């Protein structure tokens, strides 16, 4: 992790919203960098002081309406609502109820999960694990090159398909190379792109599924975008923020 990433993850770190791996990288850097350590310590102090003085504040009406709408659609459990009403301010109860409602709704959705979705989740987790391993083992590329005409032919003879390798440097995503990886019980192509200090792994292999739009998820703090196009399935994984990763996927998909 570098200085910019420490600043980028600073809020998520003090909110303990980073996954274990990123937290370790963050703390390793901070323990060795006096400048970043001073920034983190000062920011933690400021945050604690301001949070302690945070006034009771009514939620904006628009937001409270949204929470109410979610509540209705989630069919919030009346018992939980009654139990909490006595000791919580009303709108605070609403927001907590929304959280409970969301959990119930997600639970209901999970119950309806098809085998395909379970498999999809499993693949997403495998893709994230492969992404982390590629960074930890310092084995990001077998063929380090920014030239698509070097990376694409390198896969020839190593895989039973030819992955599409695009030059996206104009959009700010620089090709760093490619490597062989193993996912879904088969060898796959892993294309590596860079955005600032972030690495993006794109795992590609043939699929019989029909084309699908971009689907985004977050696992262990990593963003994952998945899509299927022209009988190829794509899984892009990175610690880059979700918006930019979606831009990347969109550019690759074009």
């Amino acid at each position: 992790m570098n200085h910019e990433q420490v600043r980028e993850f600073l809020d998520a770190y003090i909110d303990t919203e980073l996954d274990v791996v990123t937290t370790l990288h963050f703390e390793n850097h901070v323990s060795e960098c006096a400048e970043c350590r001073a920034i983190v310590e000062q920011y933690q102090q400021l945050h604690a002081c301001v949070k302690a003085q945070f006034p009771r504040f009514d939620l904006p009406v628009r937001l409270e309406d949204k929470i109410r709408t979610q509540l209705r659609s989630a069919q919030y459990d009346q018992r939980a609502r009654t139990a909490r009403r006595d000791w919580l301010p009303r709108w605070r109860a609403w927001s907590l109820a929304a959280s409970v409602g969301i959990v119930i709704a997600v639970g209901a959705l999970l119950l309806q999960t098809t085998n395909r979705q379970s498999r999809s989740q499993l693949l997403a987790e495998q893709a994230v694990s492969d992404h982390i391993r590629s960074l930890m083992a310092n084995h990001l590329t077998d063929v380090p090159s920014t030239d698509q005409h070097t990376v694409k032919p390198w896969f020839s003879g190593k895989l039973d398909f030819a992955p599409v390798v695009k030059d996206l440097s104009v959009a700010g995503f620089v090709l760093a190379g490619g490597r062989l990886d193993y996912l879904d019980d088969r060898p796959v192509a892993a294309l590596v792109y860079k955005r600032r200090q972030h690495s993006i792994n794109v795992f590609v292999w043939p699929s019989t599924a029909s084309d699908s739009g971009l689907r985004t998820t977050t696992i262990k703090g990593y963003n994952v975008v998945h899509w299927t196009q022209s009988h190829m399935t794509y899984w892009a994984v990175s610690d880059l923020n979700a918006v930019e990763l979606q831009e990347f996927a969109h550019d690759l998909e074009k």
Partner: protein
Amino acid sequence: MIGTWSDPEAELIKNANSQQVRDALEELPLEYREILILRELEDLSYKEIAQIIEKPLGTVMSRLSRARRELYGRLAGGTTERVI
């Protein structure tokens, strides 16, 4: 120290009272105010905030970060957020 608040600015922020925090919050754009309330007052997780404001997790992270810097910048006597 480069890229963070000076000692006098940090003291102003640390010593801000509840009314000053309230005044600074009221000056913030609505989207900053609401995310700060959901996090600092409600202690909701990023995931819960993302579901409530209907934005991706990445947006929650970046918006909360900008909102805090803007708030602290105002408490330090400035009117704009500090990039650190």
